[in-house]
């Protein structure tokens, strides 16, 4: 399976890594004592480590290639196992019921602290689903998504501060304001494509953050706005723990609504147009699709969800300042979409859970968090570029003749 040539290659790879990491791993200079210590053992570890990893990766590729070749022979599209489970109607409902039960019981089984972490994860799932419309479905690379999140959060903070408006009033207002910003930004920049769009949206995200940071009279600058009230429940007084659990259920509700809406949008005339737009803009226009309008709808819908979650974020933490809306947030949300699988709802949920919960439970490794992120994303691009769970196209049934077998990947 592994030939001598590959072993030689791996040897070269490990040599190269030893050379690259030599100054960092081996030489240790102490400027105070003016000593240089040579840690030769490190060099051996690096060499052995890279050699083994390189061999393993090679073996994995060989296996994958062989599998691909076999598939082409049999000419059968391979449906991923999770997709197969989801499609089996006998499994679907018990599975859904079990998941729902687990989700509802969660805050009572575990501590409030756990529920709190879960609430954060749920928020990122919804953010991911929102960005998924923009990036995953419509193919518009938006690196400034966090700007709309900030708009939502600050609209609750400011409207509450100045006008005393409550959470439930501002929730839709925050969403709509974010959507409005989406339209305002989208109108001039959506004629750009790919990298250019990414750069402009990245800039927009930073501009919003800088405005919030520097326009003291408007946003109270870096010190932020505190004492934002938590969401109320018909004027009921709640303890902190109860408020946390309430927040959790609220997020579950919003998530269910989001899944429902996103699912229906994807499986509609508009969803198809978005997909087509991602593939070929010129062909789309020739088919009579209004490019600008269709893109704008996707952009502002994505922004709407970011706005909603922004309001919830402000209510959950009871405090907002610009530091919560850095580019890092955009990058994490984007990673969720890419890791999960562009355009796939289940994939985004899984991606969010992995990317939000892993760092929480691996606090010890928190310093290496960014490093791990990078490694995970690079590994994904190499081994599974379509994401954890790839989106499966829907099969439609025809009323005219004998109805074809209808399999749906959703609902």
């Amino acid at each position, binding site marked *: 399976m592994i030939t001598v040539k590959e072993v030689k290659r791996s040897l070269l790879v490990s040599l190269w890594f030893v050379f690259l990491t030599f100054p960092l791993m081996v030489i240790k200079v102490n400027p105070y004592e003016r000593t240089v210590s040579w840690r030769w053992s490190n060099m051996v570890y690096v060499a052995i480590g890279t050699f083994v990893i390189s061999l393993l990766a090679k073996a994995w590729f060989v296996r994958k290639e062989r599998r691909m070749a076999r598939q082409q022979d049999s000419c059968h599209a391979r449906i991923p196992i999770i997709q197969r489970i989801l499609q089996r109607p006998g499994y679907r409902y018990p599975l859904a019921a079990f998941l729902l039960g687990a989700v509802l019981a969660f805050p009572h089984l575990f501590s409030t602290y756990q529920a709190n972490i879960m609430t954060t994860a749920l928020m990122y799932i919804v953010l991911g689903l929102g960005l998924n419309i923009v990036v995953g479905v419509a193919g518009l690379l938006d690196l400034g998504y966090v700007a709309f999140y900030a708009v939502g959060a600050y609209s609750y903070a400011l409207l509450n501060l100045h006008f005393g408006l409550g959470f439930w009033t501002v929730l839709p207002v925050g969403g709509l304001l974010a959507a409005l910003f989406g339209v305002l930004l989208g109108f001039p920049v959506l004629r750009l494509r790919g990298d250019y769009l990414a750069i402009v949206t990245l800039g927009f995200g930073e501009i919003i953050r800088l405005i919030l940071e520097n326009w003291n009279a408007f946003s109270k600058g870096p010190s932020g706005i505190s004492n934002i009230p938590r969401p109320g429940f018909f004027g009921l007084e709640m303890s902190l723990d109860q408020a946390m659990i309430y927040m959790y259920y609220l997020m579950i509700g919003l998530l269910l609504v989001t899944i429902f809406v996103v699912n*229906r*949008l994807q499986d*509609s005339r508009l969803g198809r*147009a978005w997909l087509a737009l991602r593939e*070929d803009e010129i062909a789309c226009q020739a088919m009579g699709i209004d490019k600008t309008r269709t893109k704008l709808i996707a952009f502002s819908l994505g922004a709407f969800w970011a706005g909603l979650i922004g309001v919830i974020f402000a209510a959950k933490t009871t405090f907002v300042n610009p530091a919560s809306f850095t580019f890092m947030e955009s990058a994490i949300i984007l990673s969720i979409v890419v890791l999960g699988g562009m355009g796939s709802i289940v994939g985004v949920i899984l991606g969010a859970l992995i990317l939000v919960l892993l760092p929480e439970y691996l606090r010890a490794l928190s310093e290496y968090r960014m490093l791990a992120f990078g490694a995970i994303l690079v590994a994904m691009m190499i081994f599974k570029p379509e994401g954890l769970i790839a989106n499966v196209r829907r099969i439609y049934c025809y009323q005219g003749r004998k109805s074809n077998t209808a399999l749906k990947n959703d609902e």
Partner: protein
Amino acid sequence: MMNKSILVVSGLTMDFGGIRALDRLDLDVGPKEIVALIGPNGAGKTTFFNCLTGIYLPSDGDIRLVSPQTGRGSRLNGLKPNKITKKGVARTFQNIRLFSQMTVLENVMIGRHCRTSSLIMGAILRTRKTRKEEQETIDKSYDILEKVGLSEQANEFASSLSYGAQRRLEIGRALATEPFLLLLDEPAAGMNPQETADLVTLILQIRDEGHAILLIEHDMKLVMTLSDRIFVMDYGKKIAQGTPAEIRVNRAVIKAYLGEDVGPDNA
């Protein structure tokens, strides 16, 4: 002929910087007519299509479209491509531009986009109107697939189709926009003789259903059998027009295709 034309192009000029790709071109297409546009490579045929469908904005000239149903005319210059499609002009592409990661059926359904109207609220609430529209879209798309002979592959990815089948799918997708004028850019390119023969049958069938067709093609046998009239272009200019029989013996055409040294006897 002229007063009944559905497409009248007059004096169409397209400049790219200093290069004149189209030079005062005149052309017309009548209802249910098959018109071919031929010429050597680089003559400006595809540029002409791009001007017609709004991808390029012509530097000068006039493109008028007359709807055979209503008899109302409108100017196409400066309209966006999607507006032109909505007015009843659809096209295929020389280098196939299918949505390769969507199924064959979905590709055709995209073509129905401009004839349907449901938007966000319709999609979320899935109203009775939206559901009816969706089912209609699916059924009409299936019918079109049957016409172009691809209903068996309806749920396969467009990228998995053979070359000839992809070209037929492009025609199907264009038909889904309900055009009265169909522009085909080299529909037979890369097809084997059997596929070409099937294509001829398909084009004639489309014509008989009431669509006018303007096609660019290099396969002379196909052009001569199909066309009612032929326009010949070279270096952005129209050098000849007429029936296939007239074009076959036209001196200017032979010169453009074969070079200067053709003696009068060979004409």
